[in-house]
Every structure is written in C-alpha cells, then in structure tokens.
C-alpha cells in the first residue's frame, strides 16, 4: 500500500510543476545510481 504523505510547506520561490512528472519513471543519472548501489553493496551504511 502506498504511504500517504504530508505535503511540506515549500520555501519561498519553490513551486510544484507537474510537467516534471515526465521524469518519474526515468533515471536521469544512471551511472551515479550504479556507483551508489555499488558502494551500498560493498561498504554498507554508516552506523547512525
């Protein structure tokens, strides 16, 4: 089930533009994502 989220108050000068939703299912930075997944797989997470 999808989590219902509370919309935060946006900072001055920020606005929602549904046109940007065209990227919802597109990974714009695949190489960075690949690098990040590699780090997470090999190093894991910091102890927070």
């Amino acid at each position, binding site marked *: 089930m999808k989590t219902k*989220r*509370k*919309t*935060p108050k*946006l*900072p001055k*000068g*920020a*606005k*929602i*533009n*549904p*046109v*940007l*939703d065209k*990227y*919802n299912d597109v*990974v*714009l*930075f695949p*190489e*960075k*994502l690949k*690098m*990040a*997944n590699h*780090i*997470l*797989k*090999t*190093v894991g*997470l*910091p*102890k*927070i």
Partner: protein
Amino acid sequence: MLGEIYDFELGTGFQEFEFDSIGPKGVIRKVVQYSETNLKDLYNLGFGDKDNKTNKINDLTITNNGDSQKVLATVASTLLVFTEYFPEASVITVGATLARTRLYRIGISNNLDAIEKDFHVYGLKNNKWHKFAKNIPYDAFLVKRKR
C-alpha cells in the same frame, strides 16, 4: 541557514527538481533527481545540467557560471524539501568526476552548520563511512535527516 538560493520547481512526487543558474555563461537549467537505490529508504542524489536545445542531461561538466555557492545552496534546499516529504529517507551522492566530488565537499563544508542542524552527515573514505569533517577528501557523501 542556507545562503541565497535560486527559485526552483519540483514534480508532484517530490523527487525531481529544476532551477536556472544565471551567470556569465548565460541561463543554464539545472536538474536534481532523487532516485531509489537497491536499499529501502535510501535514495541517490543526481545533479547535472540540462542542455537547453537537446534537453539532454550532463553531469560531467563544471559550468563555471560564477554561482557555484548559490547552486549548491539550492541543491541543499531541494534536499530539505525532499526529506521533509520522505522523512525516513537517507540520501547518498557520488560525484561523477573528482572535480564534481570536490565541489560537493566544498558545498557541504560551506553550509555545514546549516546542514548539521537537520542532518547527520557522513563521508566515505577508504571504504568506510566517517562523520563528515571539513578539508578531508571523500569519495561519496550520505545524509540522514535528524528526528
């Protein structure tokens, strides 16, 4: 408090953000995207320029538009908005080049007091995560919102 930032737009899913860098090189569209990684609640921050003519995204160039502090403060502001919407999220970012990674480090260092009010900040060095410290070169960065 973050310094001066650019106005920005975001998608209804709170994962895509865009804004314009304005400087001597002209108006350059910047894109920030938070993508899900293979780990639950862990997102990758991607950041780059959008070519005004082709709409292609490039995360390898250093724009040199004379506004890197304002650009990085704007990216930090998108991080605040993103993690308010996804409070359980941690965010990792890796520079596409050494120059980019250095730029991120400088950006975090310059805004560290403001960032640490809301986030735990870590840097990856020698394949280990460390609490972020200024003037230390890292390979990647990870932030988690404080509760």
